[in-house]
């Protein structure tokens, strides 16, 4: 069943057309990868899905679980189960990671009609997830993303995703800035969440990540369009041949 359906999506930023007719259907249980060179609109797509300001949808639609996603404010999208792992996670001075996580978890629980998580339950939960992601427990006492290394920031993103259990997660260049060990840990975290009710859109520049998070489908994006779609083998082809021929086509 289609969890997310993007139809003929055109988006412009400050009058400049960035996305020029993206159509993509992702079913529950699937992992899709979008690959492509820099500046083709990959991050624009993830920002539009999450509802960031400053992007004008000039044509097309995005539906999530049958709802008009574009009509919803960003926080409502998040509570409905859309998660964006940021390419550049934002620093929030003074706010401890744990306070942030707790507020986010409680926002979700409120939507589900559940009471706020109690302190003991929260700690137990976070500690268990930390262990799996190789995150030291004292990291959650630090202000969110402040002074975190590139690897710590990405792990913190995956920790948030793991705790919030979204139905649809977009990973925007989650592999950037990760060494091979961190890449493996982060990928294991994502793989652990894979399941029949959940879908992923993995945006990456390199095929490397897809060795660890093996996608069901690979799409090549160039010039604001999806220019080719295929199975996971398409990623190997791109790695070997580069994006040049697609850029020419776009």
């Amino acid at each position, binding site marked *: 069943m289609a969890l997310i359906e993007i139809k003929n999506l055109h988006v412009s930023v400050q009058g400049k057309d960035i996305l020029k007719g993206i159509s993509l259907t992702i079913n529950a249980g699937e992992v899709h990868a979008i690959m492509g060179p820099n500046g083709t609109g990959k991050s624009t797509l993830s920002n539009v899905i999450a509802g960031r*300001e400053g992007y004008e949808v000039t044509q097309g639609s995005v539906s999530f679980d049958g709802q008009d996603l574009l009509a919803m404010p960003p926080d409502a999208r998040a509570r409905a189960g859309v998660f964006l792992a940021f390419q550049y996670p934002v620093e929030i001075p*003074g706010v401890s990671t744990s306070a942030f996580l707790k507020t986010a978890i409680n926002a979700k629980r409120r939507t589900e009609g559940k009471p706020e998580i109690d302190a003991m339950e929260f700690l137990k939960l976070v500690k268990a997830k930390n262990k799996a992601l190789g995150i030291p427990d004292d990291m959650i006492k630090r202000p969110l993303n402040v002074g975190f290394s590139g690897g710590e920031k990405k792990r913190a993103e995956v920790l948030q995703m793991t705790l919030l259990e979204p139905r649809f997660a977009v990973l925007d260049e989650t592999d950037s800035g990760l060494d091979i060990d961190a890449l493996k840990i982060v990928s294991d975290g994502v793989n652990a969440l894979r399941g029949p009710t959940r879908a992923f859109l993995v945006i990456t520049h390199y095929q490397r990540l897809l060795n660890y998070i093996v996608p069901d489908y690979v799409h090549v994006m160039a010039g604001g369009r999806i220019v080719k779609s295929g199975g996971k083998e398409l990623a190997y082809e791109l790695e070997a041949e580069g994006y040049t021929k697609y850029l020419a086509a776009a």
Partner: protein
Amino acid sequence: MAATAKTVETVRDVEAYKYGFVTDIESDLAPKGLSEEIVRFISAKKNEPKWMLEWRLKAYRYWLTLADEEPTWAKLHFPKIDYQDSYYYAAPKQKVGPKSLDEVDPQLLETYKKLGIPLLEQQILSGVAVDAVFDSVSVATTYKKKLNELGVIFCPISEAVQKHPELVQKYLCSVVPVGDNFYVALNSAVFTDGSFVYIPKGLRCPMELSTYFRINEKNTGQFERTLIIADEGSYVSYLEGCTAPQRDENQLHAAVVELIALDNAEIKYSTVQNWYPGDKDGKGGIYNFVTKRGACRGKNSKIMWTQVETGSAITWKYPSCILQGDGSVGEFYSVAITNNHQQADTGTKMIHIGKNTRSKIISKGISAGKSSNTYRGLVRIQGKADGARNYTKCDSLLIGSTCGAHTVPYIENRSPTAQTEHEATTSKIGEDQLFYCMQRGMTQEEAVSLIVNGFCKEVLQTLPMEFAVEAQKLVGVSLEGGVG
């Protein structure tokens, strides 16, 4: 519209003041205006001894000489106050003071309940002794008996005038002289009530002492007077919190608080101030002109002020420490939030007189809407204060681009062996921060509250536990727009 612009709009659009209601208890009003007769009337109402009346009259006469000397140096703008257009005495009609809460007017108790301070529950559950001030007369004093057994005196100041004249005469105005400023002279002439605390030698007061202030009578100026004395080696933590009902007239509130810490004594004074700030167009609201000062008179004594200022149309307030005793310590922690058209000019003074005295100032100012928020602080180190040290940190957080934040530090150092440090930062809540939080499911208000609470954490942590929880909520509510 950009997320920040929306935030500005929502925070501007603050919901109707939560505590805006008026109870209609008949008041015993003095005629409008201020004169020697009114001062005599107030003194007579309070059955005061002659020395007290004389003291008031002296203050009143001095105030008259100050007629055109209202302080104007603060970054505050408001129309000239007509001091003859106000009532200076209002008391709920009660001939004899209540012996217990059962004797208190149920309507009064209901008012407290609406404010979220059920006295009965507080007594039973939290062990906090409350000297509740309703308008100008204390209507209930709790836990008195238990405190009495410990030798603690915690009572309305009018009672202290009757029962402990030697303490009142010795310490009243010993920290803040009558002639200190315009509002102090006025307060000294007409104050009607307030709290008096004496902690005996060597006692660590086992309870937080707390007073709730509330203005309830139309056009009644509130002139509270608080005097706290911590004798040698004692410790006390005192909480003060205020809410006021909504109304259109500006209401003047000019309190005076004096703290005295003798050798090795420690006083912790915490305030949550949430007077009616006026509506979103800047109409109405309390004028809060407060003089608070503590004297660390004894060696190694300590005074710590913590304030969370979210209310009032105008805040003029500089809780200060005079560090007389060698090795004494003064600390000031402040969160000041201004929204809509609120104006705050607040900070502290740390006067280092004794040797090896230390002071610390942590100020967090948050401005939203069209408000103006100024930190003004003085650190003065006198010539004989060898080895004195000060650390000051002033951080400002802006929400939107129509508000203002100002930092005005004065540092006067006359000691070659003293050290002072000053740090200041100004930041703005970023759209990317709000978007990040909202992408995790938080509403915009939750996101603002989380970020602002993070910004103020250093200060809120210094509050006693229950007060800290209340203050955190208040921080969110003060910046919240219409969203429940």
